[in-house]
C-alpha cells in the first residue's frame, strides 16, 4: 500500500517536473521500472517466506540505481531524484526484514547515493537524508519489538494450550489413580491382611481429591480477581480433608476473604479438629464452609461422645482458659460469633464471621 502511494507521489512529481528531464527515453525507462517493480515487490515481499536476501537486494539496488541515474536523466543540476520518496519502500522492507541494522544500512546506502549525485547539497536535501537514516532505524526497532511481542504472545498461547492439555491428562491420570486407591480400600476392608494398606490408600485418596479440588478452585478467572491480601477459604481449609476421618464440604464455589480472616479461621478449624483427635480419637469430623455476601459460616461437627456436662464450666471456674474459650476468643476478634452444641452423639461448633475486614485486633468482644 505504502509503495503504491510512494509510486503515485514519484510519478506526479516526475510529471510535474517533466520540463527538467533532459533524456526522456531513459526517464521513461526509469518510470517504467518503478511501475513494474512496485506491484511485483508488493507481492514478493508480502509473504515472509519470499523475503530472501536476493529480492531485498534487488529492491534496494533498483532504488539506488534510480537515484544514481538521476543526474543523467535530469541533468547535473536536478532538484529531486527520479524515484524521490519511492526509495522509502526499499528502506522499509530492509528495516522490517533486518531490523534496525538493516534500516540503518539501507538508509546509509540511499543517503550516500543521494548525496553523491548532487552537485550542491541544500539544507532540505540534508534534512531528507537524515530522515531517511532515522526512519530506517526507527522502523527497524519497531519491527523488532513487534516481532518480539508476537513471539511472546505465541509463547503465552502455547503455554496456555500446554497447561490445558496437561490438566486434561492429569485429570485422566488422577481418575485412574483414584480408581485404584478405591479398589485397594475395598479389598483392604475385606481381607484382614490388607487392612493397613487399605487405610493408607484411603488417606492418599483423600489427599489427592483435596489437591484436585484445590486445582479446580484455582482454575477459572479467579487468578485475575484474587488480590494478594485475599485468600480462598475453601482452598485454605482443603488440606484438613487429608486428616483421617475428616471431610471438608463446600458449596462448590470460592469463598474469598481477607488473608487474616482466612488464616484465623483456618487455625480455629485446626484447633477444633485437634480437640476431636484428643478427646474423641477415631471419631469422624465434618467441616462445612458456607458463605453469603456478608458472612462466612463454618460448621465443624464430630460424631464423638461429646463434651461431658460441666467440663467447660469446671475449667472456667479453675481459671483455666480451655480450648473452647480460646476458640471463642479468636472468633470474637474477627467480630464473629461462636456457638457450641454438644451431646453424647457428638459436638458441633458453628462460627459466623463477617466477610468484610473488621478492625485489626481487640475489636468488639461480644459475649
Amino acid at each position: 500500500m505504502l509503495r503504491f502511494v510512494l509510486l503515485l507521489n514519484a510519478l506526479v512529481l516526475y510529471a510535474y517536473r517533466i520540463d527538467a528531464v533532459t533524456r526522456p527515453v531513459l526517464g521513461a525507462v526509469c518510470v517504467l521500472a518503478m511501475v513494474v517493480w512496485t506491484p511485483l515487490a508488493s507481492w514478493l515481499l508480502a509473504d515472509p517466506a519470499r523475503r530472501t536476501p536476493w529480492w531485498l537486494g534487488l529492491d534496494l539496488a533498483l532504488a539506488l540505481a534510480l537515484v544514481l541515474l538521476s543526474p543523467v536523466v535530469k541533468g547535473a543540476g536536478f532538484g529531486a531524484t527520479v524515484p524521490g520518496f519511492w526509495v522509502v519502500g526499499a528502506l522499509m522492507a530492509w528495516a522490517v526484514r533486518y531490523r534496525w541494522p538493516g534500516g540503518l544500512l539501507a538508509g546509509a546506502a540511499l543517503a550516500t547515493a543521494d548525496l553523491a549525485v548532487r552537485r550542491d547539497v541544500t539544507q532540505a536535501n540534508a534534512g531528507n537524508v537524515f530522515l531517511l537514516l532515522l526512519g530506517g532505524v526507527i522502523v527497524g526497532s519497531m519491527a523488532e519489538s513487534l516481532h518480539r511481542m508476537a513471539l511472546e504472545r505465541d509463547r503465552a498461547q502455547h503455554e496456555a494450550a500446554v497447561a490445558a492439555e496437561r490438566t486434561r491428562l492429569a485429570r485422566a491420570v488422577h481418575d485412574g489413580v483414584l480408581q485404584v486407591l478405591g479398589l485397594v480400600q475395598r479389598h483392604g476392608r475385606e481381607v484382614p491382611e490388607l487392612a493397613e494398606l487399605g487405610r493408607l490408600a484411603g488417606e492418599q485418596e483423600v489427599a489427592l481429591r483435596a489437591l484436585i479440588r484445590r486445582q479446580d478452585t484455582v482454575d477459572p478467572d479467579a487468578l485475575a480477581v484474587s488480590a494478594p491480601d485475599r485468600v480462598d477459604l475453601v482452598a485454605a481449609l482443603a488440606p484438613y480433608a487429608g486428616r483421617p476421618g475428616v471431610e471438608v464440604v463446600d458449596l462448590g464455589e470460592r469463598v474469598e476473604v481477607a488473608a487474616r480472616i482466612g488464616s484465623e479461621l483456618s487455625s480455629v478449624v485446626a484447633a477444633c479438629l485437634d480437640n476431636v483427635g484428643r478427646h474423641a480419637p477415631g471419631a469422624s469430623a465434618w467441616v462445612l464452609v458456607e458463605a453469603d455476601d456478608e458472612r462466612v459460616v463454618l460448621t465443624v461437627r464430630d460424631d464423638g461422645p461429646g463434651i461431658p456436662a460441666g467440663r467447660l464450666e469446671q475449667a472456667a471456674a479453675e481459671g483455666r482458659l480451655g480450648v473452647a474459650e480460646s476458640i471463642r476468643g479468636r472468633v470474637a476478634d474477627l467480630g464473629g460469633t461462636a456457638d457450641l452444641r454438644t451431646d453424647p452423639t457428638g459436638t458441633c461448633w458453628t462460627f459466623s464471621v463477617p466477610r468484610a475486614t473488621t478492625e485489626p485486633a481487640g475489636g468488639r468482644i461480644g459475649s
Partner: protein
Amino acid sequence: MDAQLQEEARVSVMVVDDHPMWRDAVERDLREAGFDVVGVAATGDEAVRRFPACRPQVVVLDLQLPGRSGVEVTREVLQHDPSARVLVLSASGEQADVLAAVKAGATGYLVKSASRAELLDAVRRVARGDAVFTAGLAGLVLGEYRRLSAPADPGRPTLTERETEVLRMVATGQSYKQIAERLVLSHRTVQNHVQNTLRKLQLHNRVELTRYAIEQGIDGDDGGDGDDGDGAG
C-alpha cells in the same frame, strides 16, 4: 431376610464403568447380593445403546467415561425411561460433573471409596426412589440454590427453611436417622425433604433446557434479530 432377598432379586441393575476391574468388582458384588445385573457398558455410547434392551431399574454410573459423558448418559437414559434411577459412582467426584449429573436427574451419588455395604445399601435405596446423598453433594446442592437465588426471580427454585436445615445437617455428615431424631420428624419426612431439593433442581433444569431449546428454535426460524450478544447483565 428371605423376603428381603426376594424383593431385591427383582431389582435390575446396569453397571457403566470404563475400568474393567471396577466394573467386574461392582457387578460381582451386586450379583452376590442378589441383584439382577442385566447389562454392563464400558462407554457412554454403549450405555445409551444397550439401555433400551436391558431396561434396568437402576443404572450404576461412573461419570468419567470415554465418548458420551456420564452427564449425557444420565439425561438420555432418563429421557428414554423416566422411571429408571441413576446412581452416580464416581472416583474423582469433580464438583461440576456431580452437580450436572444430579441436575440431569441422577438421584444418588457415592464416591468409589465407599464400602461394599454402602454401595449395596445405596443401590437398594435408589431403587426404592430415595435420594442418596453424601455430605459433599449436600454442600453442592446448597451452593447451587444459593447461586440460583442471587438474581431474585420468582421462577427460580428456592429452598424452604426446613429443607435448608435438613441439607445443612446432611452436609455435616448426619444420617437421615440422626436428623429425624434431632428435628423430631419421621425418617420418611426427612427423606422427602431431601428428595424435594433434588426434584426442584431437576425440574428447573428441564425448564431451562426447554426454554433454551425454544429460544434456539425461534432464532433459527426467524433468522434472528441480530441481538445474539445481548446478555442479561
